């Protein structure tokens, strides 16, 4: 079938963020033991409670087994062969962006991240994380005027220690799962956001993660706290250079919303996915979870997952507060030998809580794309509702699309609805569009874009454009 092959060609687009920045870095030696953790903690001049948190997590991690239930086929990871701390060498303290190594700025410039002054007009505050360290955060003064704290987690440990001590690990405990425990033990940096009571964050906040070094893992931690009646929209982007080896990325994201607060967390994940033979690429094992503590609070996850050799990620909501709302909108595109096992958990505990799940999976090549999600109604979640929709699109007859929804209810006065379907880009549809004068390539792009529309509509403006571009990039190029 001619058109089928063309569709396959269209989805294979080379990775354009695969360059390496040649920069002097400070690395510690490979391997993981208590001394490594003490060294990381020392380098970051951390207080004792944090060191204990790390050591406690490490001891728990040692007793845990790497999960194998997702049936992801990958070579066993040698955790002693990873560098757990790597940072670009720079002056002790940066007072302005002018002092950041120009090579770093250039890197982020190439990636399209507005770090430099002239690009600040975009009105998005950015925290840029390069390997293990946050190198710059923009718009801090402007945000501080509104009482918003946006900084790297290392700075927050120093300046807002009480908040860190109170909330770190409160949503994802150190022993939550294998990769969360590993992250809790060795996390290097990440972003911290605090929105005070009654404040609507004046601009979108964003963090950008860049892995540069091939043999170091990236373990960042993000913590966002939205106080009563506050709201924030947070964006996250990721890229990495092309290496033949697999790099481990095990992050933890914790969100907390109090009464009437809302957090919108959007991700465009475009880590290097490995080459066509499946060599190299990032192992993306991430734990993301939000806790709707307050009444009428809301957490909304939206994600566009296009990269990584393996994605293992379930952004979840624990709906504790009365009438709290959880949302999950996801597009996952896999190609070649990529594997994605992603979905969400909506745990309804409080009464009259609501959740919506919309997941779109597109699998091409020899990839495996699985949706795995849990919806749970606790016995006190009276009057709660959930609606889930999981659609898969298959391109070619070698790719797999799986759906594994887990639905559990202990509350008769609640409603759960789940539906899933599978389809492909049919020749009829392609023929119809082409007969209207639309190029083949554009027709495929239009159909994929239409398939993902429900999710793209939920992305913030800045990201919607990027996501569209990203999918278009993966879908355009080789034909025409």
């Amino acid at each position, binding site marked *: 079938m001619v058109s089928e092959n063309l569709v396959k060609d269209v989805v294979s687009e080379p990775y354009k963020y695969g360059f390496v920045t040649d920069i002097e870095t400070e690395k510690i030696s490979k391997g993981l033991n208590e001394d490594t953790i003490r060294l990381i903690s020392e380098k970051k001049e951390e207080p004792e409670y944090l060191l204990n948190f790390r050591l406690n997590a490490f001891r728990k991690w040692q007793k845990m087994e790497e999960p194998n239930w997702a049936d992801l086929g990958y070579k066993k990871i040698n955790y002693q062969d990873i560098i757990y701390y790597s940072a670009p060498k720079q002056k002790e303290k940066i007072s302005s962006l002018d002092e950041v190594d120009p090579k770093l700025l250039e890197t982020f410039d190439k990636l399209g991240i507005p770090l430099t002054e002239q690009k600040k007009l975009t009105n998005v505050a950015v925290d840029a994380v390069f390997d293990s360290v946050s190198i710059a955060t923009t718009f801090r003064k402007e945000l501080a005027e509104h009482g918003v704290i946006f900084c790297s987690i290392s700075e927050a440990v120093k300046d807002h220690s009480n908040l860190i001590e109170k909330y770190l690990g409160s949503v994802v405990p150190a022993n939550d799962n294998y990769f969360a425990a590993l992250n809790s033990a060795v996390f290097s940096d990440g972003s911290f956001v605090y929105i005070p009571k009654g404040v609507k964050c004046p601009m979108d906040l964003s963090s950008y993660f860049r892995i540069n070094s091939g043999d170091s893992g990236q373990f960042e931690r993000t913590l966002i706290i939205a106080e009563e009646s506050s709201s924030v929209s947070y964006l996250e982007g990721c890229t990495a250079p092309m290496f033949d080896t697999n790099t481990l990325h095990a992050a933890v994201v914790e969100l907390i919303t109090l009464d009437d607060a809302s957090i919108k967390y959007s991700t465009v994940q475009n880590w290097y996915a490995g080459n066509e033979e499946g060599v190299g690429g990032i192992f993306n094992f991430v734990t993301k979870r939000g806790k709707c503590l307050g009444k009428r609070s809301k957490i909304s996850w939206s994600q566009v997952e296009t990269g990584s050799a393996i994605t293992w990620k379930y952004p979840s909501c624990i709906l504790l507060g009365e009438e709290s709302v959880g949302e999950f909108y996801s597009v996952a595109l896999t190609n070649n030998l990529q594997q994605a096992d992603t979905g969400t958990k909506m745990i309804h505990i409080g009464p009259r809580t609501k959740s919506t799940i919309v997941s779109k999976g597109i699998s091409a090549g020899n990839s495996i794309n699985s949706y795995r999600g849990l919806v749970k109604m606790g016995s006190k979640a009276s009057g709660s509702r959930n609606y889930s929709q999981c659609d898969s699109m298959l391109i070619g007859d070698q790719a*797999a699309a799986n759906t594994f929804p887990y639905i559990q209810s202990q509350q008769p006065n609640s409603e759960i609805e789940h539906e899933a379907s599978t389809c492909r880009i049919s020749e009829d549809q392609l023929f119809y569009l082409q007969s209207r004068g639309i190029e083949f390539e554009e027709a495929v792009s239009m159909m994929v874009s239409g398939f993902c529309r429900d999710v793209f509509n939920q992305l913030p403006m800045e990201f919607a454009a990027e996501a569209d571009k990203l999918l278009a990039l993966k879908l355009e190029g080789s034909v025409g």
Partner: protein
Amino acid sequence: MQIIEEIKNNELISNPSEIQKICLDKLKLNPLPNIKSEYWRLSNKSKFSRFLDHSNKNKESKINLPYKKASENIIRLIIGENNSINLEEENYSIKELREIEVVDFIKKNISNVNPNDHWSDLLNHCLSSKENILGLNISGNKIPPLEIFSASSPDSLNAKTLILFFEKNSKVDLLQINQGNENSSLSQSTYFCLEENTSVNHGVVSYGESKSNLLNSLNVMQKAQSEYSLASLHFKLNYARFEISINQLDGNAKTNIKGIQITKNNDQIATYTQMKFNGPNGFLNQINKSLADGKSHAVFEGSIIVPKIAQKTDASQLSRNILLSRHAKIDTKPQLEIIADDVKCKHGATISQLNEEEIFYMRSRGLTLAEASKLQLSSYIQEIISSIPISKDRWDLLDKILK
């Protein structure tokens, strides 16, 4: 878990046959159930262990036939009660399989099964003696309705096996009744092999007395152009597990599955279905319903597997569940695993309570709350049990359930 201990210590069977030996070895390597295995099945180990708490005394099972044989035309068989059958009529024939055929079939089947998925079959073959295996070869298209009974005896664990070969072009209505006695466990394994162009309308009704446990496994192999329809009902069982595995060997076949499980008190009834399409143009329409009351727990897990070869498959699966009590629990997990791209596959699941608007409507017409609820429940159950191949005047199932 007496049985597990006996397996581990080689005390289960004193003089095992060849098949029993193979199964025992496989079971020993795979000492299920454990907490993890049951957790993944959304079940719980302590409830499962109730099933295994009895010893395999192989006592004569006692059956209380639930209704009289309505007409002489019906063929009624009870597994384990030496009622040998050999019918050769003008339009049909029903012949008992020879022992060697049975042994060969079981051996072939267990040699390459995944011991995790077919744990209950392995246990069944370990425990069921020669007398408790019924094998039949059925052919013809004017076969009178068949009724096959299987029962456990009080205070023990019984294992029964049923193997049916349906020859080409045969057409049959078959009702299978599994009856649990007080304080007992029944392991029932059933194999159906459908040749080309056969049509089997299969009903399964399983129920028990107090503390009845059931492990019911059904394996169906369908050749091209065959049609298999199943309607099942499980109720009044302390612990029950219904494992359905259907394989469309060459595709081009039709499968319809309807099932309902009704749990009360502290019951747990679980249905696991696995549907494999090994050829193109397969069709599946499945609906599974649960009704949970008291402190009971109902589980449904259904997986549909569509490999590359199974192009143009059309499969749909629906899980509908009603929770009647605040202490009851329903878990459902409909799964799709798809590689072929030119397919129509969908599934849906809902968990809710009785529809308030409908109840309000009926009450506004003068029905009491109890009557309205009963009426709604009847219609919910009726959708499934109306497909069970038994007439209402032979056995009023709805009446039996609602009582």
